[in-house]
């Protein structure tokens, strides 16, 4: 057992947990986006999709619990890693300039991650744990997104997700060790495309609602 514990507590082990959970969230984002896009098929279609989901019963609960567990792992590990990383350079440089490795996305992972976490809590409170007695999810959604300020924040957070994913996808593959001269460039491109699709897909909804 000590092997497993030591593995998971090591720098690489923790990063690999980040990678696996991160990729799982990418899958989740994909399904979530597909679901959200039902909104373009009209209110009924969207509500029926929501009902359909709810009708899955225990399955949906298992999935939710899984996601919550993954989120817990992802966030708690991130905190440990960020603290360790800060400690590993107690004195900062008077001047630090990138030599060309980092991107805006990679340099801001802790920040975009924090934004996403805040958004996630808010998002769950306003939609999932909101009072559903006399409103459908569509109502809640349309109502909140109709507020331009809310919509603006929503888009901002979606952009944060986009940035996070922009670096996260290829980074996760690299951390798991899936790197190959032939496929890594493809993974990079796929990661960028994925982040663009996710950002555009999610952001299009408030935009459509506000502009309507």
């Amino acid at each position, binding site marked *: *057992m*000590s*092997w*497993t514990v*030591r*593995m998971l507590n*090591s*720098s*690489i*082990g*923790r*990063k*690999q947990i980040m990678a696996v959970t991160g990729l799982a969230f990418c899958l989740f984002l994909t399904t979530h986006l597909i679901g959200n896009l039902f909104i373009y098929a009209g209110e009924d279609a969207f509500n029926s999709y929501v009902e359909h989901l709810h009708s899955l019963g225990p399955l949906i609960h298992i999935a939710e619990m899984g996601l919550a567990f993954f989120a817990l792992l992802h966030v708690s590990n991130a905190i440990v*890693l960020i603290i*360790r*990383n800060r*400690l*590993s*350079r*107690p*004195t*900062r*440089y*008077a*001047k*630090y*300039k*990138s*030599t*060309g*490795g*980092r991107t805006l996305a*990679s*340099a801001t*992972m802790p920040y975009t991650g924090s934004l996403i976490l805040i958004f996630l809590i808010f998002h769950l409170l306003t939609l999932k744990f909101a009072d559903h007695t006399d409103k459908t999810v569509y109502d809640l959604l349309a109502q909140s997104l109709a507020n331009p300020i809310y919509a603006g924040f929503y888009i901002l957070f979606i952009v944060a997700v986009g940035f996070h994913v922009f*670096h996260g996808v*290829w*980074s996760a593959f*690299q*951390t*798991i*060790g*899936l*790197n190959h*001269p032939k496929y*890594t460039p493809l993974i990079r491109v796929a990661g960028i495309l994925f982040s663009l699709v996710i950002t555009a897909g999610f952001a299009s909804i408030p935009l459509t609602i506000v502009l309507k």
Partner: protein
Amino acid sequence: MSEKNISLTLRVWRQAGPHVKGQLITYHLDDVSTDMSFLEMIDVLNEKLTLRDEDPIAFDHDCREGICGMCGAVVDGQVHGPETATTLCQLHMRHFTDGDTIIVEPFRSRAFPIIKDLVVDRSGLDKIIQAGGYISASTGGSTDANAMPIPTQTAEEAMDAAACIGCGACVASCPNASAMLFAGAKVSQLALLPQGKAEREKRVWSIVHKMDELGFGNCSNERECEATCPKEISISHIARFNREFTRAAFVSREK
């Protein structure tokens, strides 16, 4: 090469000892030939300081041809200076312009405590190698060198990793002060070669834990190490390192 002379303002980190507070001190230097190397420029400054009976700037250096890995400082925010694939001793003043102000700082990392001025203690890198960066082959018992063919491509890739000079630039430039490229290069080299396969699980396991124990940070794939590495070692070796680690975790029979 057209040589000319430039004037510079240097702001150099001066710190008398490990536990003393340091600060950036400003020096002006005229008549710096653009054909000088960065270290020769510091030599010239040190000669002047010596004649003024001031303490010359302490800095590590030895071969001055970019292979021993002894030199290194952060020049204007960049490890080994603005040129890619270059050690500090191979950085030439032709890459600076007249009137420049240059900030020179030591490598900074918890694992690299400062000894004096620009000199840091990089023994952590040796400790990583001692943890397992070797093949346990004793002298005298080896079979013929050609007994085990190694495909050119494998040998070349191992050589790419083996080119590491252990200067610590990867650690210094990493936003997390991680030693993943240094350690990964060694693990990757020995994992690629058939001779290194016998110990691969033990090796990667010990190295990762030694690295963590020494206080190096984690890899967040920022790729600054690869961009700054004087030997241009690819982060694909970090990926192999990660892979070796996972493999070891599942394959090793130890509990």
